[in-house]
């Protein structure tokens, strides 16, 4: 078995492993892509509502962003386009290893802006029941897996850009 090296492609997967990882990558890509496009298509969408309900460590930062129109508009654009591009990248397998990290950054921020911790009350009811662990945290971990076990050089457009000689 080949040695795992961070950021390298020196991994051999069984078909099952590869299928699982690619499906995970594609599904998360789909999710990001639609989250981004839905925001792009909605002229009334703004990150303000989410930020205004922020609790814990980053609530001060959230307030700063919401109270400054320029920062808020940057936050909106970064979210809309960030999610869209990360999504398309994961789905198509183009630069996926890097965008997996960026995507992980996004969901970790979403988690930290509104963590389901004991004693924090949010005005918007959640769609499920969470104690410390929520779907954002799990998606962040899933993206960590996608970063650590890259697949786009095997199944994905990255295949045309890298490692052509290795397979």
């Amino acid at each position, binding site marked *: 078995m080949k040695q795992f090296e961070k950021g390298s492609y020196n991994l051999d997967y069984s078909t099952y492993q590869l299928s699982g990882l690619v499906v995970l990558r594609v599904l998360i890509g789909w999710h990001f892509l639609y989250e981004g496009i839905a925001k792009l298509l909605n002229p009334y969408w703004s990150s303000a509502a989410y930020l205004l309900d922020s609790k814990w460590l980053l609530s001060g930062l959230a307030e700063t962003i919401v109270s400054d129109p320029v920062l808020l508009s940057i936050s909106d654009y970064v979210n809309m386009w960030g999610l869209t591009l990360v999504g398309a990248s994961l*789905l198509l*397998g183009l630069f996926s290893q890097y965008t997996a990290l960026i995507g992980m950054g996004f969901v970790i921020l979403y988690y930290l802006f509104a963590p389901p911790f004991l004693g924090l009350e949010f005005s918007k009811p959640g769609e499920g029941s969470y104690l410390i662990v929520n779907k954002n945290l799990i998606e962040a971990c899933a993206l960590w897996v996608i970063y650590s076990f890259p697949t786009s050089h095997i199944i994905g457009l990255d295949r045309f850009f890298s490692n052509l000689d290795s397979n």
Partner: protein
Amino acid sequence: MSDNTNQDNKTNTDRRELLKGLATVPVFGLFLVNLWRKMRRDALKKSNLLADLFQEKSAPTVISSLPDSRHLNLGIIGYGGRGSHLVRGAGFATKGWTNAASENARKNKLDKGFETFMQQEDLNVSLIGVCDLFDVRADQGIDASKNEVRPGGKPLESATRYRHHEELLKNDDIDAVIIATPDHWHAQIAMDAANAGKHVYCEKGLTRTFDEAIDLYDTVQRTGITFQLGHQNRQVEANEKAKQIIRQGLLGDINLVELATNRNSPWGAWVWDIHPEGNRILI
């Protein structure tokens, strides 16, 4: 032979390369197809909703400018707080009001009072009679009838002052009256006006008693005048729209209606001070 095999192998490898590289592109295509379907469905849902909302039997009445041959002469009976408001709705405001409103608009761009007044339809009317017991109020009414700052520009005529509504009703040049006296006078003055052949816009409440209401109804029927009671909220488009929305079942069955009004101030309850120069001796 071996060359051919090599060639075949290479072609197969190339094809496999291509397929693996593009393996998830169909998923992207599937995403786009579903995105398009969702967008179309949402747009359809929205347009259906809007179509339901805007299904109107008729558009709200808009009075366009009347030709000169249909110029109407108005009289106001009771030029107090409400009376002056109604007369402004007909296109006549005192110089004091237009000066203050334009000054407010100059100071605050969000203050649209003056703009709204100036942009209302020119109803092709003149205010030629003002009936009020209070000299100050009557003078203000006459001032309003002359004010050139109004939709339609300089008024054709100015108003004559009357101390009794019967005197005003004797003026044959007056086509219609606005009645904005204290409530207990509404029915009597409205019937007198109808009998004098004047069309009537009468403030609410209409009458004090049921019998008065019947009398007034009969008088209006007999004289054939046009009568409107000042329930202006009935004509507000928002209320019409709300009625349509409920009728069309967009809200489902209504099982609770909550209403609230807040008039917890003397101003809100229409307890207004008498003008300092009001001739109190008559009260």
